């Protein structure tokens, strides 16, 4: 066994690998860029080596720097995590030349599976179902259209080089196909340095189901069941689970058999994932094989009880897995939610900044939090904006979704905008609860993203009640301020009017032995059992005899910001007098829309689609900013004429930096 390994990665996956290595008694070496000097993975590792400036291309992707770190620290093996160098066969070759073990599959398997066209040919030859499509490189936009017409629309244009959804473009028409090909090729060139693109049949209402594979050097290959990752947004997985709620037993057997068959065909060693697309009729087609540890591997670990990183390290040290297929059994249901620093209300734009508060729910045998940042840490513009993965395990799917919902309710993050409200809504979505989602469900249900401040819900009244309790208790703190003479007359009122920008409630509050009781004008009484205090953000409560739930409350000026089950409101709690006078208050008109088109985040101006004097329509894409490895299209907020261009393509933009000016 190795005595020391290096983790050529950062963030949560580096921390996750270090955790297992520590359990195995193996010393760990972290690598870090300038931006990660104080990162959690650096603090967790036994030692850490600086490998360069913040951009990944100058640090985490520099093979020389990683090799140097390996030599200087004396690490015997490298775990690559996911992303970065994890599927780079050149990297594997260099390691093998240097006598350093790569904790992952063999170079040949990476090479064979890394190329989408080669991998499909291997799969087809091995008898694995392959999606109808073309397995050759497209030469021109016209060529793309010709091929698409042969296959039949819709079609998907995909870069040959890599996965993760980057550079993929869907086309329903010749025009979209041409445009998609150009964009796909350009992004492929940017991200992977390889502009080759292919085209394939696009399946409507598809499900994404993948099979976890493990192999050792003795030729033992097993599968650890499937994961369903159908809840995706722009091909990025959002919520993953194991097992799949969709597969029937026969399909489950067939799909796992085929996955193992494919793994055998390439003599697969270590952990890998075979991805399939599954249609409504349980037909499944091979998509690609990922020759690395997947982001969503924890759900498999929960249901199988097997530590995948442990297996990868042992296999890399030429140890056998130590179990065969018959010894693997699955139990219960695991669900994972990915928590990102992004704003669901603004088309999921990445958000960066300092995590002024970051308090995950308490971990237990049922709740696991994989994260690479802690409170006071930074979500940097240089890397993926994922903050954490929240994974739960229960006997049934219903219980798992409930526990995930509760754990999300308790997750406290300030400083950056996160997708937590969106996740809270998603895990409570009836279609998700019924297991009837497909990979385009999120885009269909939430075409304009998710704005927790606009959402309606029956729990808003509950939120207003909580705001009332909070306000009542805070007011009560002031009862003791008086000198006693006047205080005799002063008791905190019990009648309150609660208003938000769109709701109004009329409540009466009463203290009870275990909390407070709120009655409405309609005579409905709700009894809240709670032990909340004004210095707390989490408001745990049970209403009448239901299960304990959790809302988050913060105070700002006169308002209480209430976040409950994925909905947010700013409530003002007023006395009946103030409530009555409120009718005279005028709704102030918001300031005029700025004449400037501003960069919504720090990034690089990749494309300008307009020139000075040009007229644009509201909603038209006028510029593209690349940030956090994503292209973000900026649209005109209204019709108008561009009077001035204030930035040039290639410029580094600060957040809110004006890019162009519209006519006033």
């Amino acid at each position, binding site marked *: 066994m190795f005595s020391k390994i290096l983790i050529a990665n950062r963030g949560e996956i580096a921390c996750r690998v270090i955790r297992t290595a520590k359990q195995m008694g193996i010393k760990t070496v972290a690598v870090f860029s300038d931006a990660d000097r*104080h990162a959690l993975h650096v603090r967790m590792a036994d030692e850490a080596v600086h490998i360069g400036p913040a951009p990944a291309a100058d640090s985490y992707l520099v093979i020389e720097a990683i090799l140097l770190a390996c030599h200087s620290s004396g690490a015997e093996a490298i775990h690559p995590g996911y992303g970065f160098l994890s599927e780079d066969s050149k990297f594997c070759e260099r390691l093998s030349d240097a006598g350093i073990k790569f904790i992952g599959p063999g170079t040949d398997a990476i090479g064979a599976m890394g190329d989408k066209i080669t991998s499909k040919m291997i799969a087809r030859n091995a008898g694995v179902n392959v999606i109808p499509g073309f397995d050759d490189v497209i030469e021109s936009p016209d060529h793309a259209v010709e091929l698409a017409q042969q296959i039949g629309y819709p079609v998907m244009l995909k870069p040959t080089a890599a996965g993760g959804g980057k550079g993929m473009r869907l086309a329903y028409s010749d025009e979209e196909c041409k445009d998609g090909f150009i964009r796909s090729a350009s992004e492929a060139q940017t991200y992977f340095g390889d502009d080759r693109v292919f085209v394939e049949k696009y399946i409507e209402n598809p499900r994404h189901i993948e099979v976890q594979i493990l192999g050792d050097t003795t030729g033992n290959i097993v599968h650890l069941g499937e994961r369903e990752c159908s809840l995706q947004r722009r091909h990025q997985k959002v919520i993953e689970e194991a097992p799949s709620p969709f597969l029937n037993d026969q399909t489950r057997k067939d799909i796992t058999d085929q996955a193992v068959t494919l793994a055998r065909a390439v003599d697969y060693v270590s952990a890998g994932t075979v991805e399939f697309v599954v249609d409504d009729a349980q037909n499944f087609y091979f998509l690609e094989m990922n020759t690395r540890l997947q982001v969503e591997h924890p759900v498999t670990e929960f249901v199988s009880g097997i530590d995948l990183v442990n297996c990868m390290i042992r296999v890399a040290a030429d140890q056998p897995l130590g179990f065969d297929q018959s010894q693997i059994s699955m139990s219960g249901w695991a669900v994972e939610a990915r928590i990102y620093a992004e704003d669901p209300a603004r088309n999921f734009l990445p958000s960066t900044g300092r995590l002024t508060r970051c308090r995950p729910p308490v971990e237990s045998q049922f709740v696991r939090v994989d994260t690479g940042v802690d409170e*006071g840490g930074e979500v940097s513009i240089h890397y993926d904006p994922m903050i954490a993965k929240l994974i739960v395990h229960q006997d049934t799917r219903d219980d798992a979704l409930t526990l995930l919902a509760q754990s999300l309710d308790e997750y406290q993050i300030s400083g950056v905008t996160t997708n937590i409200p969106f996740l809270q809504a998603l895990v409570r979505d009836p279609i998700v609860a019924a297991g009837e989602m497909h990979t385009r469900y999120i885009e269909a249900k939430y075409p304009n993203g998710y704005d927790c401040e606009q959402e309606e819900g029956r729990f808003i009244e509950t939120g207003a009640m909580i705001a009332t309790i909070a306000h009542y208790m805070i007011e009560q703190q002031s009862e003791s*301020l*008086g000198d006693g003479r006047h205080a005799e*007359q002063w008791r905190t009122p019990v009648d309150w009017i609660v208003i938000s920008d769109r709701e109004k409630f009329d409540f009466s509050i009463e203290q009870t032995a275990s909390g407070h009781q709120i009655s409405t004008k309609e005579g409905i009484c709700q009894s809240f059992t709670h032990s909340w205090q004004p210095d707390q953000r989490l408001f745990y409560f049970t209403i009448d005899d239901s299960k304990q739930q959790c809302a988050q409350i913060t105070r700002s000026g006169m308002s209480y910001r209430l976040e409950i089950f994925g909905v947010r409101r700013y409530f003002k709690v007023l*006395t009946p007098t103030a409530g009555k006078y409120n009718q*005279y208050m*005028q709704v102030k008109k918001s300031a005029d829309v700025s004449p400037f088109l501003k960069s919504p985040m720090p990034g690089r101006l990749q494309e300008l689609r307009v020139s000075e004097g040009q007229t644009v329509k509201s909603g038209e894409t006028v510029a593209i900013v690349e940030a956090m490895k994503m292209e973000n299209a900026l649209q005109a907020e209204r019709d108008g004429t561009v009077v001035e261009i204030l930035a040039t393509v290639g410029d580094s933009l600060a957040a809110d930096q004006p890019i162009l000016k519209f006519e006033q």
Partner: protein
Amino acid sequence: MQDIIDQLNQKRRAAQLGGGQNRIDKQHAKGRLTARERIDLVVDRDSFEEWDMFVEHRSTDFGMADNRIPGDGVVTGYGTIHGRLVFIFSQDFTVYGGSLSEAHAEKIGKIMDQAMKVGAPVIGINDSGGARIQEGVASLAGYADIFQRNVMASGVIPQISLIMGPCAGGAVYSPAITDFIFMVRDSSYMFVTGPDVAKTVTHEEVSADQLGGATAHTETSGVADGAFENDIEGCLMLRSFIDFLPANNQSPLPVRPSGDPRDRIEPALDTLVPTDPNQPYDIKELIHKTVDEEYFFELKPDHARNIVTGFARMEGRTVGIVANQPMVLAGCLDIQSSIKAARFVRFCDAFGIPVITFVDVPGFMPGTAQEHGGIIKHGAKLLYAYAEATIPKVTIITRKAYGGAYDVMSSKHLRGDVNLAWPSAEIAVMGAKGAVEIIFRAQLNDAEKIKEKTTQYSDKFANPFVAASRGFIDDVIMPRTTRYRVCRALEMLAKKKLDNPWRKHGNIPL
């Protein structure tokens, strides 16, 4: 007897209607409340005792003899806020446009005198067109009588002004002398001379709102301490605000129980100060994480934002907070920020409120605008305010404490009681680069040498140890423990007694 009672009820009803339903409706249509409605919101329910409801003006000129409205345009009296006594006057725009007559002024004077006798705050709600022109000089005398009382009450009882409508001409000088001025956005304005005069005299075209609205005074002039969205928010926030203040300069600080533990650890503060000394960070995060329940009532939030001032509580007791803000102008001291903080520190000192100072100051702002604007004199105000203050003073240096600005910011040398530093503190005459460029001026061409010397200088001074070795810093603390250390310091200082030598008054550089 019954006649008298009927007459009384009739008069009361008339007084309560002020200028009549028509005018009340007009006031409401402008999104404003009436004088009585505002008082309703400010004081505890059923606590208001009105005085002088039947006072009428004594003017007979210009047809005023037949035009008398009981109360004469201002509602006065006392009540309680969360059970604590306050005096209040509220000008009634529905009665002669809230204009100030001799009788109107006398009513205000009467409650101010009473407030002084019993030692309770005075709240003034201003909504007045100005002097009652029909009364001429009698009305001007009324203003001056109020100014004199404002001055006598200054530093004795807290005086707070809410500007909820026009406040123009001489009328502005009463709020100007009070301790705090709050305005309402879009419906209040203050100026000495209005837009019409400005246009005639200087040919300047400007609207009332641009000239003296809430934005003008909360951002540019710094005359007002805050602005609220509407009348309701203004009145209700005033209730929260007054909870921070003692009743008078002799009374103990109000205590409001809090369950927030004194030893609450905030690990994130350890990474608040960025590694790069030139990178900003938000000092408000430190303030929020230090004080009770993260509740900070900021004053002048939009003016001179390079310094942050406001009230909070530590273990239930009021504290004043002054903090350099590295996010704005690198947190340097300039004319506006010095004036803003100086006046705040003097208020705290007058009323026995301890001041916590968070320091990250690279120095004074350079340039002709500052020098010719009198930064020497204005910077001295803050120095003076800290030096004369006898209240408990706790100082935490988070990063830069350079040059004269280090001295000014509640340093040990200005009788700072407890001066603590974070490990990231750099207490020095100036930054390493600047210092080396002066000391080694002759070798400026030798980049290598300069770099080496800069590192040397930085190693020697870019830390809290040189200052600590001289006792200028009492201890170097872990950022995460800041709340606990400040609580301990304030507890130790609870009975602090320190007197300045007798004098009529000092001569602060005005």
